[in-house]
């Protein structure tokens, strides 16, 4: 692995951590509903670093949480979160970033904004919930449908984040050539 890749992976893990520490945030379309940005960081990792390095950045982030760094959204960290009902989402971060990166590379010929939005929707929402919901059902002794209902409240916010990723990826790639894997 090139040093450049290693450092980008490490700094992206730091970005995901920093995004979780940020105070709440206004998205223009959300009508002022404050949301945290950690899952946006996950989507962005896959989109910007590509499938493999994006997943590694997320894995590194999760490793830091397990070591005890309080960098999950809301300042949580340590082993406790892996025993929580939402641990499936945290573990789902890794395949989510991977699939987002995969979709992004498949959409090479599509302009960056729609490509990044589609990649984020499939990876950051589809795959993430594919892991999070069954895990929640298992951990909390609920049926799959009950667990899905419990998660529905988060879907609109996640969709807005996926759209934001499209514009962020576009802005980043215009500011720094090769900011987005496989483009520019």
């Amino acid at each position, binding site marked *: 692995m*090139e*040093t*450049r890749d*290693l*450092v*980008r992976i*490490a*700094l*992206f*893990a*730091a970005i995901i*951590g*920093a995004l979780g*520490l940020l105070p709440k*945030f*206004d*998205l*223009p379309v959300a009508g002022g509903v404050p949301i945290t*940005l950690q899952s*946006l960081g996950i989507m*962005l990792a896959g989109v*910007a670093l590509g499938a493999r390095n994006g997943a590694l950045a997320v894995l*590194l*982030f999760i*490793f*830091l949480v*397990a*070591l*005890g*760094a*309080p960098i999950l959204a809301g*300042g*949580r*960290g*340590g*082993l*406790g*979160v*892996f*025993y*929580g*009902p*939402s641990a499936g989402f945290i573990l789902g971060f890794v395949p989510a970033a991977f699939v987002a990166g995969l979709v992004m590379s498949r959409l090479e010929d599509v302009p960056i904004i729609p490509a990044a939005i589609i990649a984020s929707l499939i990876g950051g929402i589809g795959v993430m919930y594919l892991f999070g919901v069954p895990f929640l059902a298992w*951990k*909390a*002794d*609920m*049926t799959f449908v*009950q667990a899905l*209902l*419990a998660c529905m409240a988060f879907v609109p916010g996640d969709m807005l984040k996926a759209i934001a990723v499209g*514009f*962020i*990826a*576009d*802005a*980043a790639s215009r*500011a*720094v050539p090769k*900011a987005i894997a496989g483009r520019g």
Partner: protein
Amino acid sequence: MISNYLGRETWLHRMPAGAKLAALAILSVVILPVDDWRALVAALAGVVLLYASLGKEAFKRLAMIRSFAVLLAIIAALHLLAGTWQEAVAAVARLVMMILLADLVSMTTTMQAMMAALTPVLTLLRPFGLNPRKLSLAVSLAIRFIPVLSANWEARSEAWRARTGRRPSFRLLGPFIADTFRIADHVAEALDARGVARSRRGGREWG
């Protein structure tokens, strides 16, 4: 960086990190099949006593569970709607107990000790392409850069607030990400210049 590590040393601090991790792993397997709400509530009470045995500061950390309050309430409500109150109590008690137990390990173990305890396990992953030295470099870099990037973000949102009078917008994120990539490439050049993370070209062997 602030962590949930407990500064004042207790008897649990003195136990080896590996033993605590092993105990946690065994307990989580033992607890999983238990369905009796009375047994689970009793075990939860035991965990609370364990916190109490570590002193006042540790006892206050029980409040950390509040960050799960909404999700726990939803879980309890769904159980009450679809089943019995006993099931609701059992589900919530089991979750709370395991979260508290795991937090107890993190509260009494430094990140360095945790890393050291995990190193033998990580070494086993070498055949799968994991290089423990590269991992520890990446861990140090990420930990070092979280406060740096947070400060960078703060400066940006300060400027944004000064100019617009509004809360920071997601539009600041594009340049923020781009700037982080620039920093990353500078750091990589600096590491290469000092031969720190070199993998193939001469010098020390990392790969």
